[in-house]
């Protein structure tokens, strides 16, 4: 197992120097996507998930002839999701004429620091994890297919309302993402007639939430809402249940991952969330992706695997239809219609906001240690 991981890492390094080229198009220059994301540092696991999604997408795209005969490949620069490094990498990609489109970075803060450089140089910055409402406001070269928090949080609040929950206590990650999401969720819950009775902000490196939970409980909520990633979300859920609190837990879609189940154990049963991508989704394109992913990595894909895959499929479709010029890609994004997507069904962009028009989410829950579609109605207590 360890040896396998090592080979995988070395394999990737080799890939970085000699991009995988299918037999079909051996003589042609590859079309290069420049990715910036965290491969080391505290967010390193997310960059590792991206790569798996990208690799499955590349297999599929290049087996189908690449971009009009040219193979598609990517370079992945490690930014540690640090705004200083994304700026430097941006200068590098902008100056490298082989890069036709940039993908990333992970955190909106790190991505937005680099936006002015991409915008000034006319290279599309395509952020697929950037749910920050201001991300695409950086200019007409800044695009995203992430679900905007302004769309996602009201959908989560709808779920809260439909469950019949009125007094919510929120626990959220204290960074720009968690804070923005929390503010939007509070507003959305209040619009729907609910009440937010308490909110606690915790730091990414914390593992002990006992005292935060005592504080949340003191506000006497009828439910707890989490705005977390899966490691801290699992931790919170465990400690909430261990504190003897039985109120329903509803979480933002960012906790969705098979890892959430592994780290949370039996205590995460009954946790509710809304997600744009869900491998149990019966749609054929989702199932063919899940199959390809499981064949390659022997594990179930999670949200970032799915989004990463979706992003490359989308960009490949744009490049096939509109060409691989930097400007053509920007114009193609505003014109492209009906690209099949494991996240959205079909993707088209709103050319004003440069976000995906009409996102939707599935409501799911943890049932017997597995993610399953939520079929219940109101929670009666």
């Amino acid at each position, binding site marked *: 197992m*360890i040896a396998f*991981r*090592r080979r995988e*890492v070395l394999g990737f390094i080799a890939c*970085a120097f000699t991009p995988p080229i299918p037999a079909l198009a051996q003589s042609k220059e590859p079309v290069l996507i420049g990715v910036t994301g965290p*491969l*080391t*540092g*505290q967010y*390193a*696991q997310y960059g*590792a998930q991206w790569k798996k999604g990208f690799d499955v997408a590349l297999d599929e795209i290049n087996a189908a002839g690449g971009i009009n005969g040219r193979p598609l490949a990517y370079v992945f*620069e*490690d930014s540690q999701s*640090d*705004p*200083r490094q994304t*700026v*430097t990498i941006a*200068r590098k990609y*902008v*100056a*490298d004429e082989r890069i036709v489109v940039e993908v990333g970075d992970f955190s909106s*803060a790190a991505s*937005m*620091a680099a936006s*002015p*450089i991409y915008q*000034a140089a006319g290279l599309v910055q395509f952020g697929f994890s950037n749910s920050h409402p*201001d991300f695409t406001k950086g200019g007409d070269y800044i695009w995203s297919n992430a679900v905007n928090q302004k769309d996602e949080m009201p959908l989560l609040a709808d779920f809260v309302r439909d469950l019949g929950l009125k007094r919510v206590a929120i626990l959220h990650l*204290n*960074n*720009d993402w*968690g*804070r*923005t999401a929390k503010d939007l969720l509070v507003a959305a819950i209040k619009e729907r007639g609910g009440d937010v009775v308490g909110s606690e*902000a*915790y*730091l990414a*490196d*914390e*593992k*002990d*939430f*006992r*005292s*935060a939970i*005592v*504080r949340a*409980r003191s506000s006497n909520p009828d439910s707890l809402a989490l705005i977390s990633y899966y*490691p801290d979300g*699992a*931790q919170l859920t*465990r400690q909430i249940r*261990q*504190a003897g609190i039985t109120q329903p837990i509803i979480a933002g879609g960012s906790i969705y991952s098979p*890892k959430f189940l*592994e*780290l*949370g154990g039996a205590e995460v049963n009954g946790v509710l969330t809304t997600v744009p991508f869900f491998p149990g989704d019966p749609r054929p394109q989702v199932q063919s992706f899940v199959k390809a992913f499981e064949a390659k990595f022997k594990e179930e894909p999670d949200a970032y695997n799915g989004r990463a895959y979706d992003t490359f499929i989308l960009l490949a479709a744009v490049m096939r239809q509109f060409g691989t010029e930097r400007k053509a890609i920007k114009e193609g994004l505003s014109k492209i219609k009906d690209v099949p997507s494991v996240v959205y069904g079909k993707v088209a962009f709103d050319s004003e906001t440069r976000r995906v028009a009409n996102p939707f989410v599935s409501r799911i829950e943890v049932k017997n240690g597995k993610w399953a579609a939520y079929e219940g109605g109101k929670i009666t207590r």
Partner: protein
Amino acid sequence: MTLGPWFDYTINGLVVGNIYALLAVGLALIYGVSHLINFAHGSVYMVGAYIGWLCITYLGTPLPVTLAAVVAGSALIGVAIERIGLRPLQGSPRIAPLLATIGIGLVLDQVMQLLFTPDPRGVALQVPAWRIQIGDGTIGALDLLIAGIGIVSAGFLYFFLRFTKLGWAVRATALDRDAAQQCGVDVNRVNMAVFAIASALGGVSGFLVGMYYNSIDPNMGYHAGLKGIIAQMIGGMGNVPGAIAGSLLLGLVESYGIAAFGTSYRNLFAFVVMILILVLKPNGIFSRGRSLPPEPLTGTFIAPSAPIRIPMWLVVMLALAALALPLIVRNGYYLQTLGIGWLYAVLAISLTLVAGTAGMISLGQAGLLAIGAYASGLLAIKLHLPVSVTIPAAGVITALLGTLIIFPSFRLRGHYVTIATLGVGEIVTLTILNWDSLTNGPVGLTGVPPLSAFGVPLLSGTWVYEIGLCALIILALLQWRLLGSHLGRTLRAIRDDDVAARSYGIALDRYKGLAFGVAGFTAGITGALMAHVFSYVNHETFTSQVSLLALTMVILGGLGNVSGAILGAVALVSLPEMFRVLAEYRMLIYGIALLLLIRFRPQGLLGTV
């Protein structure tokens, strides 16, 4: 049974303090014997957790066997750290082993990340799952096991130190290493035994904590290690029972802090308590005396050496060549990389003044950057002042504010300065995080205006390069002029022997204040420039990693050496860029480079001035 939330907060504080205690005991033991704050301890804790996880997951071992494997494996790592990493540094200046532990920690973390991926993993619970209701919360079997292991190991250590021959040798070595050696104690063996015991404890605590939270990851060690260091500082450096009491106290303070102010204040409380203890009772809360024990000074803290002098004409030529470089190199990426390198060089010269010349090894320089960055950013965003006004203003604000917050630590020396400044740096970032109304809290400052002159924005890589270089030349000249004056001589005198300096009538606080003031001004300007170049700053932009990087630059170049600091900065900022193709290995290579440097050229490339 309801006893109100305060009872729950108390229990929670004790449960968490219990976990800190296992780490703090090992750290106290190592400090007691080798007067070394072991920054690699958190990494051993992480490795111990992985050893346990491997045993359970792949071999299916029961708890006693798993524990034995963790003890053996972690002890071996401890022995290796001592034998390979630290023993060759005997006789080198005392800053060297401190930095070596930081380097070893970095290397261990990176190696584990490469082997096991950064993904967190679950550790199967190997103790019964029952829980006891206490107040409105519960505690489980694992809480009791952790407390039991903490108490038993403290008892075992007490017995070992009092009643065994090796224990006597350990205590003798702790009292006076040279005298112990002359009496025939094999000091190396003692050190090795201490590292083995402490690391075994650290590994066990990592494993238990991993099982406790059902989650381990390669980055889990850094913050845990820091908490252990704070806890043992509260209890008194090198005091084993004090470390346990200090840990419980730290847990309680954090828990009450959360209760009173909210969850995001937790770490702020921890660091504030640490600074208070350092200033008021530097020997820990259980000591009687207020003054620090004399540090055994076989050799000074900083390596003495003859600096390599660079002739003036060469410096001028190099500066001119650097200014003209954008005429040849037009690639924005290279210019940006070098421009950022110049900015770090300014940071490095600010640090070399306090660390090298005044002898206060600071790990809080990032806090000064953050003050400068926020000062300039806020003045530009909220008051719409032009950048040409906000940047010098940020320098002045940082000089005043920075000196004020570091002032209480002026009378500390050696390791204590390093820990205190680390704490001050953390306090600055945590204050920024929590002072929402001024700093936007976690959202940070977006839309910091770019550098500009007469209303024209200077966005391109060339401008970043030229502005960084000009700032560097001006501030380096200022500092060079300062160090050549009587001020530089006075500061060096304080560094080399503060008692002698004081008896010559030098007012230590005033001169240290002056050094920190100039360093704060320089660092504040750097932070301000960075804010305008990055266009975005938040509380995570200037972490303790940045302070560590700055200190490494200064040591690479040679302490107190202005041209050395510039060389160190350019090497360490452009070096990682060179390794960018090896993305995952970059930090590892950086750690190994640091270790090799400490081993083979601790006085830096250009030597200490």
